[in-house]
Structures are given as C-alpha cells and as structure tokens.
C-alpha cells in the first residue's frame, strides 16, 4: 500500500480523498491555487503545496506544476478526483513516465474509451447494444427509408459535421422522412458547408442509467449496480439515485452485465462508469464510459456499503478486489442532491461569495460531503458545487422524505443555492413515481433564457 499520495484536485472531492486516505493510514499532499489558500480541508492534509494563481489553467490544470508538487511532496501516487486532469490521458502518461502511479485506468484504456467511435466499435464487439443507425452517410431517400424501416421510426437525421441542433431533424414516418432528409441536407450545407447526414434511431424520453464498475490489475471486474441520473438540466445532473426506480430486475441485470463485458474488453482497470440511455420499453443503449470516479459515486457507496475511493487506491496499489460479484448487494435506496451555489431564479447563474452561516443537516440516514463552513468564500474560478447531500433509507419513498427534511435543514446564508429547487423536484409526482426522463426538468420548469 502507498505511504503518501498527492491529490490533484480541490473542494469536496479533495476532502473526500483525504478522508479515505486518513482511514487507510496514507499520508496526503494537497495542492491548492491561491484562491483556495484558506480552505479548511487543506489542514487535514499532511502537506499542502501552492501550485499557482486562481485560474485553473495556471494551477489545477497545469501538468508541470502538479508533477513538480508530486516530486517535492515525494509521493508514490496521484489521485486526480473528477474534472481537471482526471481524464487527461497525456497527464496520465506523464505520471507513468515519472514513475508516479496514476489512480485510475491506464493511459491506453483512457484513450481508447475517450474516443467515442472506437468505444462504440468496442461495444459492438462486446455485444453491448448501441443506438441503431446507418453505418455511414445517407444521401438518397430510398436508402434512408430502408434504414428507417430497419431500425424503426422515429428516426433522427443528423449532420455529420453538425452541432448545436443545426442540420438535425426528427422523422416519424415515411412521408416526413423524405422532407426531413432534404431539409437536414440543405441546413447542413448552409451551416457547415457539408451536406453529409446520417440516420439513427431517435430515443424518445430516455432515462440516463449508468453502471459503476471496479476492476483490479488481476483480471477481476465487478459492478456496483446502477444509478439513475435522469434529473438533468442542460445535460448537467442535478439528482442521482440508486437503484434506478421501476427498472425491471432482468433489465438491471442485463445492463450491469453489459457494462462488465465492455470494461473487460477494454482492458480497463480501477473505477469507471458505463453510461446508457434506456427507452420507454426498457431497451438500453451504450453511450460512453467515464474513465474516472464520478460526482455521484456516493449513492453507490451507500447502497453497497463499499468505499469507492478506498477501493480505487487499493486497486491502484496492486491489491486484488476483496469482493466477488455475489458479495455486492444493494440495500435500500440512496439519493444525492448536488448543492450548487447558483441562483435558480436567475437561470441557475453561478453565485460565488461568502457563506455567512450554515447549518449542516445530520441525523439518521444523512451524509453531507462538503468542504464549506460558516465564513468560507466560494471562489468564482471553479464549478459552483458546494456540497453533495446524500441520504440512504430502506425504501425510495423513505429516502425522498429524508432528503426533503435534510434539504429543509440545510440553511445556507450569504449565497443562493439550488437546495430549494431540489425540494420542488423531489415533491413532484412524476419524480415520486419514479422513472422520469432526461427532459423532465426542462419540460416542467420554465427557466429564463440565460
């Protein structure tokens, strides 16, 4: 096991990693930018090294500075957390060339899965379903019709050079397909100078379901079951939970097995997440792999009792996974709300500033992962998440009640937060019934255009 590791991150995830290390008896070196100089969590590290000015590009994202800190801090490994350098294969390589263990997958596995086309090919090889569609570009109506009939309506016509919804059309039947194809080609040509389009199945009102994976360096891969992260706004997750509500056991098992097959095929090690979308008939399709620990990892920790950060460190240090798949069982239900320093009244505009007062929720079933405290100033340079409120109760219904009372307890003065918005979501009957889709939040609440 390592004696000393460096944490190449800040805020709640840096504190999360320090906590795991303290419990494992591992010394920690924290790095910080000048904006984080006064953060209390730095005092829990054995050493704290300033690596640059507030802007991430000059500090947390500056590979040379992070590595130099690892050298003067004399560490054996680096935990990258999430964000910043966590999925940077080059940084991963540099660590290896400096003989410092990167606590995550190898650079090769990271690169392979970071390329969406290669990852999609790999999924096909591993017999993991991907969203059906044309293998390449589609130019004439006849071919378009053939494919549409093969994969079934509705279909999505997408510009190959596209982005931002330009050159994108949905077709629900033969008639609209012809029109949509022409329109998409014209629009694509106008917008990108390239009229190439392809067709894929349009998944209506999909759920976002992802599978937590752990793999050691001895060929053992286990999953920690699934999370549902359908409560999103502009592709930003707001609420995550495990298990996914109303997902048939058979489908749950199939998704988890598929995730394990894919990860094995990729030669992946350490913790990772395989993301899927699930349609209204519970067909699931692979989207991508997140080759790192995720913000929402605690909900899987709560239902399985497994400390994922500790497991990451143990696996990186060469230990064998101490669990077989059959040892990993889901108990109860867990929900996480991301508490952001944002103003929901102003289109979720980030609202950094001083937290004058905070009452931290506690009691049965409540976990609050946060680095903030009364008197802490949320700096404007980084993301606006100030904490994760997590509950774990025997049933989903009890978990919702517990989260609602914990959100009411979480009193933060000085800056606006998303806590109250979470209460609205949790009280909405669609959420309570389970199985909302990724468009639910934006359909249900009207936000000012930002």
């Amino acid at each position, binding site marked *: 096991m390592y004696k000393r590791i460096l944490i190449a991150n800040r805020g709640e995830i840096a504190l999360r990693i320090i906590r795991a290390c303290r419990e494992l008896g591992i010394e920690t070196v924290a790095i910080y930018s000048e904006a984080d100089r006064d953060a209390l969590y730095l005092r829990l590290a054995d050493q704290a090294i300033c690596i640059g000015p507030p802007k991430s590009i000059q500090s947390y994202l500056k590979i040379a500075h992070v590595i*130099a*800190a690892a050298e*003067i801090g004399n560490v054996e490994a680096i935990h990258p957390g999430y964000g910043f350098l966590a999925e940077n294969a080059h940084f991963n390589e540099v660590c290896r060339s400096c003989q410092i263990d990167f606590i995550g997958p190898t650079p090769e596995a990271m690169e392979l899965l970071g390329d969406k086309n290669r990852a999609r090919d790999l999924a096909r090889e591993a017999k993991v379903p991907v969203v059906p569609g044309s293998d390449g570009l589609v130019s004439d109506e006849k071919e378009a019709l053939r494919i549409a009939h093969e994969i079934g309506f509705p279909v999505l016509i997408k510009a190959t050079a596209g982005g931002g919804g330009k050159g994108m059309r949905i077709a629900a039947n033969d008639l609209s397909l012809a029109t949509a194809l022409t329109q998409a080609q014209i629009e694509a040509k106008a917008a990108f100078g390239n009229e190439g389009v392809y067709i894929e199945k349009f998944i209506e009102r999909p759920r976002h379901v992802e599978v937590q994976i752990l793999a050691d360096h001895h060929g053992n891969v286990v999953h920690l079951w699934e999370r549902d992260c359908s409560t999103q706004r502009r592709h930003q997750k707001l609420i995550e939970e495990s298990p996914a509500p109303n997902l048939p056991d058979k489908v749950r098992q199939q998704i988890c097995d598929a995730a394990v097959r894919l990860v094995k095929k990729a030669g992946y090690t350490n913790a990772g997440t395989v993301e899927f979308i699930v349609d209204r008939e519970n067909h699931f399709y692979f989207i991508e792999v997140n080759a790192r620990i995720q913000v929402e990892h605690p909900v899987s920790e709560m239902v399985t009792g497994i400390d994922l950060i500790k497991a990451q460190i143990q696996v990186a240090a060469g230990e064998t996974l101490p669990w077989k798949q059959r040892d990993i069982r889901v108990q109860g239900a867990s929900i996480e709300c991301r508490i952001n320093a944002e103003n929901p009244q102003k289109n979720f505009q980030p609202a950094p500033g001083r937290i004058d007062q905070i009452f931290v929720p506690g009691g049965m079933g409540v976990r609050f992962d946060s680095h903030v405290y009364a008197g802490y100033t949320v700096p404007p340079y980084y993301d606006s998440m100030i904490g994760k409120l997590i509950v774990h109760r025997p049933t989903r219904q009890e978990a919702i009640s517990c989260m609602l009372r914990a959100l009411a307890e979480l009193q933060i003065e000085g800056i606006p937060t998303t806590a109250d918005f979470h209460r609205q979501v949790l009280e909405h009957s669609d959420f309570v019934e389970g199985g909302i889709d990724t468009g639910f939040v934006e359909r249900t609440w009207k936000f000012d255009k930002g």
Partner: protein
Amino acid sequence: MTEKTDRPGEEQPDVFDVEQLRRFVELMEEHDLSEINLKEGGRKIRLRRGNILPAASAPAPAPIPPAASPQPAPSDSAPAASSGDSENIAFIKSPMVGTFYSRPNPNAEPFVKVGDVVEPETTVCIIEAMKVFNEIPAELRGKIVAVLVKDEEPVEFGTPLFKVDTSAV
C-alpha cells in the same frame, strides 16, 4: 500624584489608582464589557477590551497546525515580484513549484548574493521541476538584501526567494 485635580477628596481614589482600575477591569471581564468611558471634569477613564475590529467576521484558522508549507505563506497574490513590508522592500517570489538552486552547477558561484544589484532580466536562481531547470529572472531592479531559501530546498508557487531593496539603485 496629579498636580491639579478638580476634586481630590481624601478618600476619593484618583483616576490613576491601580486598585480601582483593577476593579474596573474585573467588572469588564466579569460582564464581557468591551469599553468603559468615564469622565468627570478633567478626570477621565476609558477602558476597552477585546477585538474592536472585525475579527469576528473572519474566523481565525482552525487550531490544528497549518499543513506544512516549508515557507511562510505570502499574503498577497502577485506571482513574481511585489512590494514587501516597507515601501522599498520587495520580494522575488517563485513562479512555480520545484526545487531551488542558487547556482548553475555545484561548482559554480551563485547567480546572485547579498549586496548584488539585479536588473529585471538578471537570472537569480534555477527552479527545477520535472527535470527541467528553469532560469528565474529577477523581474525587478534592486539590491539583494537576503537570500530566503537554501540550496535544493523545495519551493511552492509564491514562495519568497530573495528580499530586495528597490531604493538602493
């Protein structure tokens, strides 16, 4: 004691009576007073206790010792050179994390020593990071007053390396 008191009655303690003051202070402590202001004619006593300034709004750091940073943390955020405690004193600070070298090689003379005058482009030391030896320019003009870091000592971003008198040139 005082030459001219407005009313120095025999038993009346004067304002300089230590025992009386002690009792005032005890009163203040007992009741957490922050200030007493007494005045009678030309006699006047004013006592204040505790922090008058906004200490309350900026809580002191936690009691555990600050995480080991080898040098005292600089209090401002200028990356390389900034004014120090006095108007004419400035510091050359490390622009990166790494290991400090005062000389180009172990057998050479230091780049600069106390008393040397440096120009902005004068190389004052090397910071090694990731096997790269970065020559650090002074970025200011002045006379080296002190070398604050020892050879091969690790430095952080912002660690003061040299104390410079900028009025001496």
